[in-house]
């Protein structure tokens, strides 16, 4: 059965309508969970609000476990889906840069769009920053072109690299995520007691 578009069950003409609808659902979930507030998001780094960790980790484990069931029941062929390629060095460097951007800006691209929608000027500036950042990147691209393509490992999954079945990773992530939910619940309570200025 799935994926529907690569298997030709839905033709390409519907592509953009589907994109819009999926985007609306995505934006709705992000905003409704409180991701339109940079202070909510940044709270994950200071222990006063773990909403990012909760939503993000829940989504990852639900999707991971769900994929395995979908694959088992034959609804989705996991061999045909897009696996993000791995470029070891560039990805680590890029993520570190993004980490700085995350703490400074308090948004990530998706959440900043929803925050603009409800009138946050800082989100608008963040998106302008994204534009400028990508522009700088592409103008300076020749300087680090070799690095950009280095460390290529292909479109590999964790199972491809380690030989351990995907179910182990799904289970490990689930255990880690669930444990972190309980631990952060306690941390959050403690931290909130000591912060007076911020209304939760």
């Amino acid at each position, binding site marked *: 059965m799935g994926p529907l578009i690569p298997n030709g069950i839905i033709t390409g003409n519907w592509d953009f309508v589907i994109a819009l609808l999926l985007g609306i659902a995505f934006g709705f979930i992000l905003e409704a969970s409180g991701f339109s507030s940079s202070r909510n998001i940044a709270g994950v780094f200071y222990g006063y609000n773990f909403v990012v960790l909760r939503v993000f980790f829940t989504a990852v484990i639900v999707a991971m476990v769900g994929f395995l069931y979908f694959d088992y029941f034959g609804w989705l062929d996991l061999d045909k889906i*897009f696996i993000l390629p791995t470029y070891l060095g560039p990805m680590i460097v890029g993520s570190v840069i993004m980490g700085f951007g995350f703490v400074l800006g308090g948004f990530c691209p998706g959440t900043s769009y929803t925050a603009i929608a409800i009138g946050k000027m800082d989100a608008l500036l963040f998106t302008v920053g994204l534009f400028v950042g990508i522009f700088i990147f592409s103008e300076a691209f020749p300087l680090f072109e070799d690095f950009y393509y280095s460390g290529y490992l292909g479109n590999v999954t964790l199972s491809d690299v380690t030989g351990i079945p995907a179910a182990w990773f799904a289970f490990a992530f689930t*255990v880690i995520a669930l444990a972190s939910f309980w631990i952060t619940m306690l941390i959050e309570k403690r931290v909130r007691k000591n912060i007076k200025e911020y209304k939760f």
Partner: protein
Amino acid sequence: MNRNYFFLTVLMLVLAAGTFFLNREPEYEQIKPEKLLYDIIQPTRYVTTDQVARFIIDKDPTLELVDVRSAASYDHFSLNNAINIPFDSLLSPNYQDYFGIPGTKVVFYSNDDILADQAWVITRRMGINETYVMKGGLNCWIETIIQPKEPPEDAPYTAFELYQFRKGAQMYFTGAKVDNSVVKKKKVAVRRKKKQKVAAGGC
């Protein structure tokens, strides 16, 4: 509230643990043993070296010659347009595209016909139709096509006809006694089953 979360935690753990029991190994659908046994005793699964030679000379587009010997032997000598699928990698996913192309007959050969026969049984059990074995293998090929023996004088007429064909085939394959002695190694044109395109994308 904490109790609800406790239940949800357990539910999620059970669901995640459940994935261990999902068998993701590819299952080859096997044909029924009776059918396999029936097919094995059918002589139609063999093609003779003469038939293969004729297919090659006629440039039959539906012919897919598969050399199941090692890659080294294949490099040393192989039939025209044959592809090499070493016997031990017959089940490798890399080669599955070569099988099951509609309207194509797969002909296995090896030095004799034992290895090719085994390959035939394996692919047959995987449910691949239109597979054949070249009777006698390359040894027979050399005997009949490359070095054909003239039949004794009292042989029937058909034997001479066959001999004539084999002489012709010999010229075709070895270039013997042919003016156009430059035998160009033809580029192996191989048809593969169309690969499913993996969607590209990402951020």
